């Protein structure tokens, strides 16, 4: 018998917990809890989070308590959401800032719930413009833009209140973090007792537990972004548009927040279509279901040029302390087609049948001093370096 997605996720959590990956396991446990939408389970999680912060060393008891909540979660019915229908459909949209000035598009894309879309490209190539057009902050010049929200929108304002866009520079807010989050839910008419529980649950999920009484000026920029996410997620958006959420975050924080975003968007009963722009190619590519590469306002589908089954041309990025000629000599035996040096790194293009391991082998045999090497055949990185 096939396991339901819910059972799979519970299984996953119990494996993490058994392997004592408590940090990850606890986060995944909270995702499962969020799927139940059950306030009593929320309260258990909140109590456990509070306990965990008080006794960080007592891992065994944490695991034990987590299992008891997991047991409770497994008994809750969770209705799965059908994610096959696109929520945003843009066809041939363009945005022009006037004659002879920057022009975005035409771009056609479909955003589906539960999917993460990475928007990459160099500065000034229209990432923010595209996000703002999708968020209806900017008028598009041509093309059509349709939204398929579950909630019926009676007017433009209601539509816009469903399109949640977080700009790169967020605005200052006043008062404590927790109060601000409660303000969001009260704006949505949530009753006070439910408000407190939901807010604390979100605080726990986004790792803001120890920061909940801090003010804007007391938070680091990474936590400010987490706060913005918490604020946004409380609004239960169907589509989430993030402009550079990873800016100002350290590498580890980038990974954590991307993982969090991905798992929150993958919620079983409340999936979110997430589109985020970033310069962190590697990290974004790792979590994205689809990467949208923008160059001069034009859209290149990363997967469009090369199909998954077909083997692409091998492109390798190399940083080595050597002369160009030395590298040419090393790759003499391989089927090197092109070697480009852009001042910092070499980009080597090989024929389709060359394998990455053979390149590594050649470098190793010649005892080359390589500080960095990466196969970018399938990464949008190849657009940046070419």
């Amino acid at each position, binding site marked *: 018998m096939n396991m339901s997605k819910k059972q799979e996720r519970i299984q996953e959590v119990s494996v993490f917990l058994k392997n004592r990956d408590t940090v990850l396991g606890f986060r995944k446990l909270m995702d499962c809890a969020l799927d139940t939408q059950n306030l009593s389970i929320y309260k258990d999680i909140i109590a456990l989070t509070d306990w965990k912060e008080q006794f960080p060393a007592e891992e065994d008891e944490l695991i034990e308590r987590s299992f008891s909540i997991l047991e409770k979660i497994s008994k809750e019915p969770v209705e799965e959401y059908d994610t096959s229908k696109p929520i945003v459909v843009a066809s041939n949209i363009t945005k022009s800032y006037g004659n002879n000035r920057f022009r975005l598009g035409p771009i056609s894309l479909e955003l589906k719930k539960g999917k993460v879309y990475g928007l990459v490209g160099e500065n000034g190539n229209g990432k923010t413009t595209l996000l703002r057009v999708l968020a209806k902050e900017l008028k598009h010049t041509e093309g059509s833009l349709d939204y398929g929200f579950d909630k019926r929108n009676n007017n433009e304002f209601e539509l816009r209140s469903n399109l949640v866009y977080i700009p790169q520079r967020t605005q200052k807010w*006043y008062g404590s973090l927790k109060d601000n989050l409660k303000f969001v839910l009260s704006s949505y008419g949530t009753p006070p007792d439910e408000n407190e529980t939901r807010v604390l649950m979100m605080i726990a999920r986004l790792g803001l537990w120890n920061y909940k009484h801090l003010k804007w000026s007391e938070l680091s920029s990474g936590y400010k972004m987490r706060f913005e996410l918490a604020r946004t997620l409380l609004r239960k958006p169907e589509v989430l548009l993030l402009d550079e959420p990873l800016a100002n975050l350290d590498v580890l924080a980038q990974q954590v927040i991307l993982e969090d975003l991905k798992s929150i968007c993958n919620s079983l009963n409340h999936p979110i279509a997430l589109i985020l722009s970033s310069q962190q190619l590697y990290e974004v590519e790792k979590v994205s279901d689809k990467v949208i590469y923008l160059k001069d306002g034009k859209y290149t589908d990363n997967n469009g040029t090369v199909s998954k089954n077909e083997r692409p041309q091998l492109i390798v990025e190399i940083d080595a302390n050597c002369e160009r000629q030395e590298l040419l000599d090393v790759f003499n035996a391989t089927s090197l087609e092109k070697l480009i040096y852009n001042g910092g790194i070499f980009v080597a293009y090989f024929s389709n049948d060359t394998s990455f391991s053979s390149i590594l082998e050649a470098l190793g045999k010649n005892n080359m001093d390589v500080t960095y090497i990466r196969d970018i055949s399938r990464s949008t990185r190849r657009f940046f370096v070419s």
Partner: protein
Amino acid sequence: MLSISIILHICFYVFGFISLTNPESLHNRRADSIFFENGAVFFSIMISILMLVIWLIYLFKNNAFKSFYPTNHFALFKQFALYFAIIFCCTTFYYAFQSGLKTYVDNKYDDATIKGEIALANKAAPFFSENITDYTIDKLVYPKPFDALFCETKDDFIDYAGVYYRFLNNDYQFYSLSQKTRPTKASYADSLYRNSVYTITRDSSITYYFKDKVIDVTENLKSTEPSYYNYSGVFYSNENNDNSNNSLVFHNKHDYDYKNRKNLRLSRRIQKENQELLTRNNPNEIREILSDFIILSNKYKIKHNLTANGWFDLVYNPKDFKLKALIQDEYRTDNNKKYKHSKLTKTQELYNELVTEYYLESDRLNIAFDNIDDIKKTNVISENIHFFLWLSFFLAIVIFMFRVTGLKPLLFTIVVIGLLTIIIGLIIALYSYISTYRGQNIEYFASYLTLFIGTMILSITLFSNNRLRKTIAAIFLNMSLVGFIPYLFLIVGIISMHQKDACRDLPLEKSEDCFVLMEYLGSYWSYVFFAIAFVFVLFFSKVILKWKAMAEA
């Protein structure tokens, strides 16, 4: 914030309630404006500003509308209405104070008691003995024939060929009166009625009284010397204020001696009662009046050094009740109590002769009665409520604009309105310079030009705002929001202007009942416009939502 302001309103009510507990505070004129004199006004302004600032600080911390949290036009309107309610409550402590004042006075000085006290004061007033002139024969208005006579006291107007009377060097001559009546509304000149001694205005007519013939009253006159019999002053009456349409006006050259006779009928009644009292000549009755009055004076903390017996001895002169002693109207030191010019009139000499150590500040009691009457009669929610209503309304509109469109469009709106005003002013100036017609033509031009521009702004906002850039649309939005009421006012003004001009062309009789919208509305225009303004904001909230959802160009 509303509940705090309600608590403060209660504080101000209590403050108003206790501020007149000392009767001495009633001794000065206009005790009903004590709010402006005892510092309460500064206190209330300070509290108002403080409350509004604190409220704004809290208000500006969060803006759900800016973050596109779900809302609808009714919720938006509710926000505006709340701003209005809070501002109104935070600025109107004056009314709480005044109600406190009124409640205190209404309770402490009930109508029946005050009526009795006024009657007592009027009964005792003949014995105040402050001025010789209050007791001279020209004050006789009772009994017959004096009730129908006019006594001339000015030498210039005395007919020395007729019978006249002299006391010291003052002459008195009695005249019968003739009268003429005309309707109030007739607008022709008063020249026919020149030389009247006084006029009585009734609802629809004015009666002019003229001196007719010199009358010999020697038979009726007991003596020409000042006597308590002659006193006809009304110490206090709140009746003459009741009906302003029935007023008595003394013409300038005659009026200075008649200042105490604001109400002839009342003067006659008081003199009649006084003369009857003196004729009964019952010392106990008089003494009782005086002692009751002293108790009354003490109640109101009126300064005096009278005792019932001392006073009685001063005034009781059972033979003819001639004035034999005077009481000062305020405390003076021995040095100051007498006239001290090198050349004194005979009356002044007599005053110096009769004046005693006694004093009674009876004026203060008069003022106190007046204050009590005023406070009882005032309607706390008076005309100036409109000022607070509209002040709160426009403040609420400005805050609403700031919340909805943000600071930049608000500032731009102010600049644009300023520019528009200058441009309209210049166009009007130019028009008046080049146009050959002068006068009202310019009024029409200015009104219609403003109307045209106003209509344009409003229709662009309502019908084609989405074709503009968002910031410019915001300016139009703000201008419509703040300008709607002035726009409405302009329309009513233009209609009234046309009606007035049409009335001017009508014959005189018809012009009286001519319908002019603005005059028809009267002071109710404020309430009418106010209701319209709120309905406007309610419907305009839909336009605001539409604007907010607009994407930038």
